[in-house]
């Protein structure tokens, strides 16, 4: 995911903003590509993984 995608992402449980913590990134000309990391809800604290560049914003009970 591009770092700029953060502008349109929210916690699926309470629609509050997310904090990005990237562990692996790749710099492009205009944007940073986040390959791995975590998104944490600033309100409820739920943590969502970013794996292989794809943010998984399913609530924990909906993940397999």
């Amino acid at each position, binding site marked *: *995911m*591009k770092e700029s*995608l953060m*502008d*349109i*992402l*929210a*916690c*699926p449980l309470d*629609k509050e903003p997310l904090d990005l913590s990237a562990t692996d990134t790749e710099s492009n000309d205009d944007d940073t590509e986040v390959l791995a990391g975590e998104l944490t809800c600033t309100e409820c604290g739920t943590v969502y993984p970013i794996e*292989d*560049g*794809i*943010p*998984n*914003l*399913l609530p924990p009970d*909906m993940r397999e």
Partner: protein
Amino acid sequence: MSNPRERLEHEQVYQPAEDSQLLATTVTDRISPTDRVLEIGTGSGYVASQIVEKTGATVVATDINPHACRSAADKQIEVVRTDIADAIKGQFDVVVCNPPYLPTDPDDEFDDWMEYALSGGPDGRALVNPLLEELPRLLTDDGRAYLLVSTLTGIDAITERAAEFDLLVETIAEEPVPFETLTVLKITQKH
């Protein structure tokens, strides 16, 4: 289908068919390069990549199926794994969706991701109805949604349901196929 990943994708991700093509050709004529586009339930990523290629618009896609997310990401589509648009905020000029729309016997449902991509529940509208409810918050004032459904889904019922959320429904493309007519609906907000 030479490697295991491709095989898995074909078994678990809905592949582009007549419906995807009708939706893609209908929407690409109606999207401008400056439009912000959200595709809900992108599946293989075919429609999203057609929009990017033919219009140059910025597209973000969602899917609940991890294999579909992978397939779309491989086509260079920005994809978010979420249910409908649960994790998406902000407003879009265009929302595009080819939801599961076939009426399905509950006993046959949700055994795997492919079934999930096809099954619209007993009346075909199990995913269409929650989507309609989300549209007012996802669309800009002049935004429009393009929804691919079928005569089997019950177009009148969709129109009635949409009116509950102050949405107007118009049929803009149709294609007869065996047993049903594929239909693209344009949905806008009443002003």
